[in-house]
C-alpha cells in the first residue's frame, strides 16, 4: 500500500468520524427538543 493510498484511506476515515459526530450532535439536539416539548 503506497503513502497516497494510506493518506486517502485515513482521510476517508476522518471524514466519516466527522460526519458521525455531526449526526450525533443533531440527534442529541432533536431528542432535547422532543423532551422539552413533552414538558410544555
Amino acid at each position, binding site marked *: *500500500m*503506497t*503513502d497516497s*493510498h*494510506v*493518506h486517502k*484511506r*485515513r482521510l*476517508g*476515515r476522518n471524514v*466519516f468520524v466527522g460526519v458521525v459526530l455531526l449526526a450525533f450532535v443533531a*440527534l*442529541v439536539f*432533536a*431528542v432535547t427538543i*422532543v*423532551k422539552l416539548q*413533552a414538558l410544555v
Partner: protein
Amino acid sequence: MSDLTARYDGPQGTPREAEASIGDFFSLMKPRVMSLVIFTALVGLLAAPVAIHPIVGFASLLCIAIGAGASGALNMWWESDIDSRMGRTQNRPIPSGRVTREEALAIGIGLSVISVAMLAVFANVLSAVLLAGTIAFYGGFYTMWLKRRTPQNIVIGGAAGAIPPVIGWTVATGSVAVEPLLMFAIIFLWTPPHFWALALWKRREYTEAEVPMLPVVAGTVSTRRQIMAYSVALAAASLALIFTPVAGPAYATVAIVTNALFCLLAYRVWSRDEETAQAEKYGAEKKLFAFSLTYLALIFASLLVDAALRSAGWI
C-alpha cells in the same frame, strides 16, 4: 512498505498488512448480530402498550445497536487467537491484521460507555442498566470466562442475545412485564438448537480451536437429544406468548406453523446417528440451522404485524 504504514503494528507486533478501512472497524461490531439486536429490540419497543416519540425511539435503538456492536468488538478483541485458528473467522479484522487488538479494545470500551450513557439520557435508567449488564455479561463473563470453560457456553451466553426485546420494551414503558420476558425466553431457548446444529457439522473446527462446544465435549448423541429438548421448550415459550395481549392472529398463525416445523426438523436431527449424518453431509443439521434463522425472523416479524394491526384498530 512505506514509512506511514510501518508506524502501525499488527496483532503480534508484526507490520500491519493493510490500512484499516471504515468497513473493517464496522465489521468489528458484528453487523449481522447487530441487525438481529436492532430487529428484536424494535419489536419489543413497538409491541409495548406505551407509544414513544419516533425520534426518541430511533435514538434509543441506536444506543442498543451500538452497545451490541461494542460487545462484538470486545468479543473479537479477546477471541482473536481462536478466530485465527478457525476457517470461518480467519478473515475477521484482527486475525487478518487489518485492525490491532488495542484498537478493538478501545472501540469496545468507548462505544460501551457512550451507548449506556446516552441510553440513560434518551430513554431511562432501567434500560441503560440492562444494556450495561448485557455488555458486561457478553463482553466480559461470556467471552472472557464462560466460552472456553463449559459446554453450556451457548446456553448461558444466549441470555445476552435474548435481552434486546426486553430493553426495547423498557425504553417504551420504563418497566419489565411478562411479554418481553417471554420474548427473552424465545431467543434464549432458540440459541442452543441454532448453534448446536451448526456445531454438529463444524465440530472439528471447534475441537481444533479448543472451544468446548457441546458436540466436542458431550458427544453428538447428547447434543442431538438436547437440540430436541430445547426445541420443545422453545415451542412452549413461543406458544405461551399467544395468550398475552401483544399477540394477535398473525403471531398465533406463525407461531403454530413455525414451531411445528422447527420441532419436525429437530426431530430429524435427533433421530439419526452420526454415521448417517456424515453420509448425508449433515443435510438435516444444515436445514435446521437455516430454518432457525427464518423461524426467528418470522416469529418477531409477526409480532410487528400484530402491533401494526392493533394500532390501525383492526384487532
